[in-house]
């Protein structure tokens, strides 16, 4: 039985009228990579801010590394590391200065801080750039520096808020290599948020899908995909909703389920490639015109659409949040 490193019960946070996080309950097991998946404004960062004791919850409780976030915030802060969405390193200081500054905030003794900083900068391949001002770093280098800073206090749990936001595909892959390397080296638990579905799929042991502050699904990516029960066919048909069509399509043996979605129909089928022609024949048999058809293998995209009723796309966050995202994206560019 693996112990839980994070236990969350009914955590809630309101900002005025808006309930950003609405009674979420989940646990994270020791050593796993746990992901929060959802669009901007779904409550991911608010949840991280509460678990890292930056923000107080309005209701609910949570323990991180065995310590209560409300009763022992200092204890929590000592045992966690945070790599925020933004590039927080001070641009006017060198990489090493930034490491030592972070170390001092954790009250790591000077000599020990130098040792750890050198070791971490070595691990993320920034040893040569350590004496340069951060403003000369590329996006990937900055992200690696943020990672190294987040580990200076040897945390049990590392929180990563959108760790690859704004990076190009190659750099993203490289950053993930570093994250995995550090996770193995220091035997940490990772709690991450992302709105990249592939990233959640590849990196996380378990994923919680969060929508409008609520967790709508939580499981391993494989189990979530399997829950869809097969391939998916989406069709768009000329004309409005049609009862006859529903009946006709349901009659096909390999179709398990059909329902209207996004102005068309979504079918769950056993074998997409073989079933699609049968579906088209059935629709044409009713003298209806198919305007669009697509077959999809189950992905987290499909799971997301299934659970929330819409595709995962960029949504407007608050103005302040939007500003920070823009700054992060701009700085990520080399």
């Amino acid at each position, binding site marked *: 039985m693996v112990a839980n490193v994070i236990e969350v019960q009914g955590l809630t946070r309101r900002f005025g009228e808006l309930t950003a996080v609405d009674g979420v309950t989940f646990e994270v097991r020791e050593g796993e990579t746990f992901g929060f998946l959802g669009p901007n404004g779904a409550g991911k960062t608010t949840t991280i801010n509460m678990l890292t004791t*930056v923000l*107080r919850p309005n209701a609910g409780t949570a323990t991180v590394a065995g310590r209560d976030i409300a009763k022992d915030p200092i204890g929590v802060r000592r045992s966690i590391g945070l790599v925020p969405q933004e590039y927080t390193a001070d641009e006017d*200081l060198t990489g090493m*200065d930034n490491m030592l500054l972070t170390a001092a*905030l*954790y*009250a790591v003794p000077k000599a020990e801080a130098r040792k750890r900083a050198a070791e971490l900068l070595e691990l993320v391949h920034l040893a040569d750039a350590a004496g340069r001002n951060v403003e000369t770093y590329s996006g990937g280098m900055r992200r690696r520096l943020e990672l190294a800073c987040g580990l200076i206090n040897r945390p049990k749990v590392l929180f990563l808020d959108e760790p690859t936001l704004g990076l190009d595909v190659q750099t993203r892959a490289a950053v993930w290599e570093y994250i995995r390397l550090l996770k193995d080296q220091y035997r940490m638990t990772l709690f991450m948020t992302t709105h990249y579905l592939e990233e959640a799929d590849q990196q996380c042991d378990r994923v919680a899908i969060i929508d409008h502050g609520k967790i709508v699904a939580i499981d391993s990516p494989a189990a979530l995909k399997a829950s869809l029960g097969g391939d998916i066919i989406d069709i768009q048909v000329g004309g409005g909703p049609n009862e006859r069509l529903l009946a006709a399509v349901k009659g096909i043996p390999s179709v398990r389920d059909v329902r209207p979605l996004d102005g068309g129909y979504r079918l769950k089928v056993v074998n997409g490639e073989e079933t699609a022609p049968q579906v088209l024949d059935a629709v044409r048999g009713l003298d209806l015109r198919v305007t669009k058809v697509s077959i999809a293998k189950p992905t987290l995209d499909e799971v997301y659409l299934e659970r929330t009723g819409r595709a995962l796309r960029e949504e407007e966050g608050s103005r302040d949040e939007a500003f920070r995202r823009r700054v992060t994206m701009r700085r990520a560019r080399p």
Partner: protein
Amino acid sequence: MMSGLRALTGREIKKWYKQPFVLFMTIVQPIIWLGLFGKAFNLSALAGDNPVAREMFLAQFGVSDYFSYMAVGMFSFVVLFATMFSGMSIVFDRRLGFLSKVLSTPASRGSVVLSKVLIAVFRSLVQAGIVLAAATALGLQFGAVFHPAYLLGVFAALFLMSMGMSSLFVAIAIRSTRMETHMAVANLLNLPLLFGSNALFPIDSMPGWLQAFARVNPVTYATDAARELLLTPRGAVIWGNVANDFLFLGAFAAVFATIGIVLSWRYLSK
């Protein structure tokens, strides 16, 4: 607590001296103010050689040359403006996420606020020192009984004023998510504080309502203490006046530093 405070204050000092241009401006700016205002508003020249007019000027200003009068007022002026601008770095720390990151570490909330206040005080006193040096070079006439040890008193008065002002501006800045908001508030406060004081002109000649404001304005008290000690306008230091100034400034610093730090602390612990 101490480790975090030292590190955060050290960060600000490093940022300051690692930007030679900013440092250069910090030094040049007060000298320009002094040269422009001090020499342009040569009020004592209006009296010319007329002995009656000179007598009137002396009665009003307590000294016979306006440059010395306003150079001392300039100390409070640079302190006022230095504290206002120092608040602004918090707005950036907040918007760029640095603040959230610091708040996720065990460093105390108090050290976050206090480091900003301390660096503002430090910067403003350095600027005041530059003004003093520049004013001396440009012809500040020290009082007849001036003693170099009085300089300690001058800087102590400026320290108290700066402490209260910085705490006030930090408490305002920590709530601002936009630079413009903070600028607007700071500008609204700064000019009335400057002109509604004895920094540039004696308050006895002001209308009653402005005098009432000037008499609760800390700029008045810091300037008065500095003038008393440096220029000794009445031929000797009137220690009762100086003590009075320090009493007011001490209370101002204690009250505003407490309010500012407590408010910021509570705001950061939401």
